[in-house]
C-alpha cells in the first residue's frame, strides 16, 4: 500500500498579460496484491487520485498575487452542523433555567 499527499503547482494559463497558476493538493494511494498457489495465480490492484485546488497564483508584470480557493459548500454545511449541535444544549439550558 502506497499513499502520498503533496501540494504542487500546475501549468499556468495565460490570460492577456497575466498568468494564472493552480496550486493543487494531490492525494494518491495505490494498493497491489498477488497470490501464487498450487491452484493458480491471481493479482489485483487499485487506487485513487484526488486533486483539490487550494489557491490560484496570478503572475504579472506588477508581481505575484495569491488567491485562496475555499469550498464554500463544505463551510456552510459545517456551520449548519455546528448549529445543530448547539440547539439541544440550548434547549437543555432553557429547561434547566425554567425548572
Amino acid at each position, binding site marked *: 500500500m502506497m499513499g502520498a499527499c503533496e501540494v*504542487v*503547482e*500546475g*501549468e499556468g*494559463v495565460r*490570460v*492577456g498579460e*497575466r498568468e*494564472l497558476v*493552480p496550486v*493543487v493538493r*494531490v492525494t494518491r494511494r495505490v494498493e497491489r496484491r498477488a497470490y501464487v498457489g*498450487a*491452484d*493458480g*495465480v*491471481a*493479482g*489485483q*490492484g*487499485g*487506487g*485513487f*487520485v*484526488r*486533486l*483539490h*485546488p487550494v489557491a*490560484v497564483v*496570478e503572475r504579472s508584470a506588477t508581481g505575484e*498575487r495569491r*488567491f*485562496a*480557493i*475555499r*469550498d*464554500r*459548500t463544505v463551510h*456552510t*454545511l459545517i456551520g*449548519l*452542523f455546528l*448549529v*445543530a449541535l448547539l*440547539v*439541544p444544549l*440550548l*434547549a437543555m439550558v*432553557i*429547561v434547566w433555567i*425554567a*425548572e
Partner: protein
Amino acid sequence: MEDKVQGLLDALAELREKVNVNAVFGEPVTAAGRTVIPVARVGYRFEMGMWQAAGSGEQAAEADVGADVEETGGDGSGGMRAVPLAIVEVTEEGTRVKPIVDEQKVILAAGLLASWIAFWVAWTITKILAGRPSRRP
C-alpha cells in the same frame, strides 16, 4: 483474452494521462472583455483484477480435453468525478475568485436543521409545561 486484457490496460493508461494537476482548471471562456476559468475538485479511481487457475486432471478427462484445463479471467473498473468549487474571473480591473455553492445540498441540510430545531422546541415546551404545578384545586 489477451485482447481484453490489453484493452483494459489501454483504458487505464488513458486514465493515467488525464490524471494531472492541470485537470482542476477548465477551458477558459472569454466574453465581453472578461475571461472565466472554472475550477473544480477532481477525483479518479481504478481497480483491476486478474486470475489464472489450473484445472485438475479429472476435470480435463471429463471434458475430454486430454490436458490440464486452464481458466483465466479478469475484471476492471474506473471512474472520474469533478465537483466545481469556484470560478476565476479575469478582467481589465483585476482577478477575482468567486466560490460556487451547491445550493441543493445546502437547502437539504437547512431543511433537516429546521426539522431538528422544531423537534427540540417541541421538547423544550413539553418539558416546561410538564414541570409546572397543576392549577386544579
